[in-house]
């Protein structure tokens, strides 16, 4: 994975010094909260329901054991012994003190980490495919391009005060494992008919209040124009994105209101002008970055496992992903134990995952946007030893992409923006389907819960989505069906009236019963829904 050189290190170190100074001036009263807020947000520091919350960046979801150990140490030293992995591949700490924030950033800088631009109206962490560099179906590892864009977007002087936040995802496969079309800019690295690599740009996607799927505004941008084209997209947004209404300020609204054709025209016009400025990095930079993502020294060995232990076999079937090298798989560490808090890991668990990465995965881990952790390159012959250790530590739940693998935002338990609690609901649903054994009969079923309309739980993209609302001061839950974050990107449809907490747990069970009754062949829930439509579900729920 990428390693800082003295330049990268100098930048994070300068950022730590800058923030220390800003925090000092805030504490002295030289900066008001209004003046300080955007500055601290651009270092990932929120003022949240219980305390300051710090969001640490995990660039394109990739980290090594040294970094994971450091994240665990931060949890112990400055927080309450745990961290929360997020739907943008980052990690959050909920109990931070402002007076410690500078020291935390300094500790992070020592291991080549930071919290730069993980919040604020600026370009955020660039996300990518959690199986990058391992998946069989990728054209090329997308992460060197994500790394290039990380550098381009960090401290970009023109784009520090955008109308609103800006999220970019980069993938390099037709299978979309990063919800690419639900980003402000989604990039797929593709090959044209001449065999040249380029970037296909999708601009104007997003969830939140007004979910939209990004249109493809340019099918092919040559790789030696990647940065210039991105800059053109951002400049048009900075100049013309709405600033009159916080809820209409994302680029998806601009693209929607102008129309994709007009937005594209403006981008192409800006792009032509920017090309004359020569802002593109030298192509040698991409060539410099790529070797950091070269394949580790894979070795040929056994290609199958001993399936005599049924628990182990189940975990292998569910939680491992085929690898481009047939002696390896990518293994998914579930952070969704039944009744647990989705995405949370204790410091002890983080230390263990770090050690396991070192022992079994060439010292590399990935954070999934679905709040699990990946060990990308595990030798098949090591799987049993790995699984045994995971299982002992409560990290071996075989539920990847099953109904128990719930994506949930922190919700009202942690977040001042929330209208309803999401975690207890996730726990109750997981428990219900575990107790009844029904969870094992459902196959792939992606359930996502958001505690408010900001949709940090990505509920619009859930096969089953749940949105928490405030109904006259009482928590209420809206159910939606048919969303998808994969390449068949779709936004869920609301079933009808909302439910209270107990009611929505029942409703989820009802909906899965309808699926099981109507399922044909090997259909997944989403397939059955797409085939039979909303009506049978609605009938079962409300009649």
């Amino acid at each position, binding site marked *: 994975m990428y390693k800082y050189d003295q330049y990268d290190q100098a930048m994070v170190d300068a950022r730590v010094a800058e923030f220390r100074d800003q925090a000092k001036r*805030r*504490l002295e*009263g030289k900066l008001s*909260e209004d003046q300080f807020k955007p500055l601290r947000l651009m270092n990932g520091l929120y*003022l949240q*329901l*219980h*305390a*300051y919350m710090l969001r640490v960046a995990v660039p394109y979801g990739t980290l090594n054991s040294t970094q994971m150990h450091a994240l665990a140490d931060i949890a112990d030293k400055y927080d*309450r012994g745990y961290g929360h992995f997020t739907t943008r591949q980052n990690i959050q700490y909920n*109990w*931070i*003190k*402002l*007076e410690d924030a500078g020291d935390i950033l300094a500790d992070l800088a020592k291991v080549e980490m930071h919290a730069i631009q993980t919040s604020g109206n600026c370009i955020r962490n660039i996300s990518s495919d959690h199986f990058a560099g391992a998946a069989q179906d990728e054209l090329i590892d997308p992460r060197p391009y994500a790394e290039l864009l990380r550098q381009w977007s960090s401290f970009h002087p023109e784009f520090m005060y955008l109308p609103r936040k800006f999220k970019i995802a980069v993938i390099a496969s037709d299978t979309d494992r990063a919800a690419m079309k639900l980003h402000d800019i989604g990039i797929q690295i593709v090959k044209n008919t001449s065999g040249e690599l380029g970037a296909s740009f999708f601009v104007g996607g997003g969830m939140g209040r007004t979910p939209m799927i990004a249109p493809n505004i340019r099918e092919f941008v040559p790789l030696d124009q990647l940065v210039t084209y991105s800059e053109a997209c951002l400049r048009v947004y900075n100049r013309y994105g709405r600033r009159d209404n916080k809820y209409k300020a994302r680029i998806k609204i601009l693209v929607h209101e102008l129309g994709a054709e007009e937005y594209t025209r403006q981008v192409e016009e800006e792009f032509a002008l920017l090309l004359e400025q020569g802002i593109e990095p030298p192509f040698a930079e991409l060539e410099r970055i790529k070797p950091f993502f070269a394949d580790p020294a894979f070795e040929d060995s056994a290609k199958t496992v001993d399936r005599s232990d049924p628990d182990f076999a189940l975990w292998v079937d569910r939680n491992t992903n085929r690898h481009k090298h047939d002696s390896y798989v990518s293994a998914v560490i579930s952070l969704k134990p039944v009744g647990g*808090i989705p995405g949370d890991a204790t410091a002890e668990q983080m230390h263990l995952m770090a050690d396991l990465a070192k022992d079994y995965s060439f010292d590399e881990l990935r954070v999934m946007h679905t709040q699990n952790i990946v060990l990308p390159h595990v030798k098949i012959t090591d799987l049993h030893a790995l699984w045994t250790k995971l299982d002992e530590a409560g990290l071996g739940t075989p539920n990847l992409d099953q109904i128990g693998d719930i994506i949930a935002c922190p919700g*009202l*338990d*942690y977040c*001042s923006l*929330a209208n309803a*609690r999401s*975690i*207890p609901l996730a*726990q109750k649903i997981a428990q219900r389907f575990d107790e009844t054994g029904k969870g094992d009969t459902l196959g792939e079923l992606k359930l996502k819960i958001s505690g408010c309309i900001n949709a940090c739980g990505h509920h619009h993209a859930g096969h089953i989505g749940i949105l928490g609302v405030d109904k006259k*001061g*009482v*928590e209420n839950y809206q159910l939606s069906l048919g969303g998808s974050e994969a390449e068949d990107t779709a936004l869920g449809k609301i079933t009808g009236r909302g439910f209270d907490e107990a009611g929505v747990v029942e409703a989820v069970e009802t909906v899965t019963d309808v699926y099981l009754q109507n399922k044909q062949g090997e259909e997944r829930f989403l397939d059955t829904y797409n085939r039979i439509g909303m009506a049978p579900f609605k009938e079962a729920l409300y009649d």
Partner: protein
Amino acid sequence: MIVLTGNDLKSGAVTWWTGTHWSIHIEDAVDVGENAATIMAREESSRRVNVPYAVEATLTAGVARPNHIKDRIRALGPTVRPDLTLKPADPDLGNWVI
């Protein structure tokens, strides 16, 4: 009743106006009546509190119980981690918050 809440600037801890200072315990919160704006402006400008706001509450067993569940969760801690709340040993915690 109207109580005031905010965050301690340095530590981020949730605090409640007691009439003389800011306490992390909602039991110490007092009814500020019509004086919310004046008190908040004064306390915020002197940095004794950060981003205060007024909360409607109902006096319940001698303690201000915020009317909205969000503020009750704010007062004590996340419902899903009773061990991290201000009252980890209190079996009635759930009833008070939820």
